[in-house]
């Protein structure tokens, strides 16, 4: 009996499946005309949650509030989600936002691998991506998009200058300790190029898993290599762990120099001035620069009980600029808004006459900072001496060398 019934019944089931479905779906997703919805996709609880995380969401909310909560007479809605540093989770959320929740803009996206996936998705579905945190130069290089923007910094801005400076001091041999994730491997590639062009040599490299509890097995080969410089292609907790263990195993005391280009004020705060003093790196924003930066930082601090990082400030700045562009374009259609974003100069507490290039990279003046000695610090979070201002045009790959297909040569 089982054998007799099954074929017929499978056919019926199949007909239900195929027949019922086909007419049900509209050809494309609905256009969200009645709301401008911005999704902050970030690391809410993991090792990068101090430099991004809940603080990024707060910055986005501040940007919406400062705009009166409305643009073109329609409400601005901010939502946030935790990608847990997992590519599948992050892309799953982004896809749901785009396909089912009328999200117009995806913001922050710390983690370059997730950012590249989001870049592809927003390009295909004609949405805006505001990358204030991922640093891979691919985002505005070979993966660039007409509707994707990289805001605060990238691997190039933070690496090229400091590496050249160390080479000029005669530090010729380099060893990489690199996290096995997209931003870090891209950083290693870029730095290797700069080192070899500057007459230095790379004597070795190790790859550590992202979020390694113990960095010492990866640091010891660097120590044994006796390279002049140990280049830490790490960020967040991996970076602070590596710095702490370098001192635990006597690496810095042995005369080797650590180069850590991707560092933020949250890392300095976590390390403490005693451990971090003297470290030098490039920042896109520092709260204690001028009255404008301090005004934003004060409001942010009241909500988060921490000073904003450059990345969090970038979330505010990029959303603010986006909303201005929506107002100027008179629509939230992504391509029209993106064109306006490139046309208008960026002027806020983070950037003065910042310029959005054709490849989507927003360039602005940046700062070479050095961490103060504990004795120099006069107030909580008073951490940096600004050593030099780096002009905007030196902070990104020259367009003439760009791999971005949007750049016409």
């Amino acid at each position, binding site marked *: 009996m089982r054998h007799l019934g099954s074929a017929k019944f499978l056919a019926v089931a199949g007909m239900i*499946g195929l027949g019922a479905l086909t007419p049900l779906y509209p050809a494309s997703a609905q256009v969200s005309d009645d709301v401008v919805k911005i999704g902050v996709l970030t690391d809410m609880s993991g090792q990068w949650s101090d430099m991004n995380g809940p603080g990024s969401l707060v910055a986005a909310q501040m940007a919406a509030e400062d705009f009166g909560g409305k643009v073109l007479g329609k409400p601005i809605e901010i939502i946030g989600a935790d990608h847990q540093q997992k590519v599948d989770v992050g892309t799953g959320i982004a896809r749901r936002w785009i396909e089912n929740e009328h999200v117009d803009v995806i913001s922050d996206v710390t983690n370059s691998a997730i950012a590249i996936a989001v870049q592809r998705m927003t390009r295909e579905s004609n949405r805006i991506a505001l990358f204030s945190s991922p640093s891979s130069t691919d985002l505005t290089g070979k993966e660039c998009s007409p509707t994707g923007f990289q805001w605060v910094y990238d691997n190039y801005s933070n690496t090229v200058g400091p590496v050249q400076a160390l080479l000029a001091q005669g530090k010729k041999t380099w060893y990489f300790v690199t996290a096995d994730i997209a931003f870090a491997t891209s950083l290693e590639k870029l730095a290797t190029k700069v080192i070899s062009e500057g007459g230095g040599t790379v004597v070795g490299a190790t790859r550590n898993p992202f979020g390694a509890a113990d960095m010492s097995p990866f640091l010891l080969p660097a120590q044994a290599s006796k390279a002049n410089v140990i280049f830490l292609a790490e960020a967040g907790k991996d970076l602070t762990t590596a710095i702490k263990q370098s001192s635990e195993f006597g690496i810095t005391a042995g005369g080797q120099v650590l180069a850590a280009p991707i560092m933020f004020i949250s890392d300095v705060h976590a390390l403490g001035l005693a451990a971090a003093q003297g470290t030098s790196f490039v920042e896109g924003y520092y709260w204690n620069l001028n009255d404008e930066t301090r005004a934003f930082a004060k409001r942010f601090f009241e909500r988060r009980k921490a000073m904003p990082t450059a990345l969090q400030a970038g979330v505010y700045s990029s959303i603010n600029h986006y909303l201005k562009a929506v107002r100027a374009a008179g629509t939230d259609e992504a391509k029209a808004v993106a064109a306006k974003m490139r046309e208008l100069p960026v002027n806020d507490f983070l950037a003065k006459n910042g310029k959005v290039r054709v490849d989507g990279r927003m360039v602005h003046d940046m700062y070479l900072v050095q961490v103060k000695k504990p004795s120099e610090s006069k107030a909580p979070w008073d951490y940096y001496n600004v050593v030099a201002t780096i002009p905007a045009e030196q902070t990104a790959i020259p367009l003439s060398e760009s791999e971005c297909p949007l750049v016409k040569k």
Partner: protein
Amino acid sequence: MSTIFGVPSTLVYAQLLLGLINGAFYALLSLGLAVIFGMMNIVNFAHGAQYMLGAVGAWVLLNYFGVNYWVALIAVPVVIGAINMVVERLVLQRLYKLDHIYGMLLTFGLALVLQGAMSAWIGSSGQPYAIPPELAGGRNLGFMYLPNYRAWVIAVSLVVCLSTWYVIERTALGANLRAATEDSLLVQAFGIRVPRMVMLTYGAGIALAALAGVLAAPIYQVNPTMGDELIIVVFAVVVIGGMGSIMGSIVTGFMLGVVEGLTKAFYPQGSSTVAFVVMAIVLLVRPAGLFGSKPDASHRVASHAVPDFTPQGQKIAFVLMAACLAAAPLAVYPGFLMKVMIFALFACAFNLIAGYGKLVSFGHAMFLGGAGYVCGHAAKVWGLSPELAILAGTAAATLLGLITGWLAIRRSGIYFAMVTLAFAQMVYFVALQAPFTGGENGLQGIPRGTLFGFIDLSKPAALYTFVLVVFLGGFFLMMRIVGSPYGRILRGISDHEMRAQSLGYESARFKLVAFTLSAAFSGLAGSLKAIVSQLASLTDVHWGMSGEVLLMTFLGGAGTLFGPVIGAAIVVTMQNYLSALGQWVAVIHGLIFIACVLWFRGGIVGELIVRWRRLRGHKTVPPDAVATSIPQPGNRKDIAMASNGN
């Protein structure tokens, strides 16, 4: 500079020493695990979580009560050990008579609860814990600079391990303990209070884990997931050393640390997998482990055959399911529904071997994720059409299933779970390191392509229909397999292997076919997942995924046709719609695990069927339970059990 095989000798020594430190932690943890297994026959999956609790305890004492490291070193293990004795009394005691796998499931749930709760509380990135000032600094050993604290860890763990060994092997108390593990009834007859002894042993085992946690806090920081990866390696240690062997765990713990250290010096990429390679070899060559004396301690007492729908009911349910899934996209986000179907397919595939074959694999993620990578690579790099790419992924999983199955089915129970886990970890290693998988970034941008050259899968309706058809087709096939004579023989083997063999069935061949089929369908699910999500990632090959499919299957009802579908739907729904709860979702998962093991071993569907039949006054044997057994006189007892539920 002197070198050993091209590696600076100083580096080799340094990595060896670091390995020894890791080995100290392995030894401390595996010692506790071995004692608990020896006494209680429980494979304590929560051991890593207890280690993490030790570190958190030290951190709490320091930050909330200003209590320093030295006090914490004593206080934390005592308190955590005491709390766990209560847990043993209230919960674990109920498991001793059940199959090992239930103890493992329950403690896996406990681990999820503890880890989730701690992540929600202290954040998943962890908290710093400073090295106590008395042990700061270090000394130069010539070949390396050894921080004092790390030397201290080696010393403490050696002393603790050896004293534990001495107590168990050389004192009267230890003699009683060992006797009780051999025959607790007899020992009880001599007037020794065995239950109390078991409780104290468990407490002591956990205290050792907590002590390791306190020791680890200044090195690894206090992180909710710190026990997560460690416990898997510690399992390997215990299996290699021999389940229940004290000296075996100590020696193997240190040895494995050293082996890992050496691997780090010569072949760094392989360091995280070498433990599993060793484990797989040992299990296959010397199943009792290097020092073990209990080759196969499986003592299956109660058989949990679960009644299922009648064939007629199955068809009605199938048509209903098809109709619901076809109509659902009207109301529900199709992306979510497709995820449910894919995981349902995966869980049903898992159910083939775990539910019907009673071989609970802990490595099924390798088939899901492995097939995803192959399918993705085929579609993206080789430019195959989606149907061929899916075929390639499924074929790869089938082949992998055949090879790993051929090796794994020689073992049963907990050993089977461990062997499959070992193979899955090796696949994970390949996925992490191989150039074509994209490592941590995953294999991105897999094209959906055009099915059979004319159906454009980038259209949402076409994609949904395709997933629906594949899911229903796969499910239908599995339904037919289970209902076929082959399926009945398989269940007969899982109920009583010896009897099936004596009836002339080659049980190994049947199990291998079941395992391979299960792998093939898991691969189908994984390939489909890669096409739908356009991504193949490490999450799908991680052992957490093997745990998730276990949860789905047991929650819905292992050994029932529709149970895994229901289980998958519930778990995916929780992940999707409760994501705002963050880490608490893991806690809920864990609690479900625990509840299932304690009260609903039949799962939702299994329990419902039992209740329904009772309501209808069916005192007779459910028809399907007859089908599960090979008809022969001696089988009456099993059938009676089955009809009673569990």
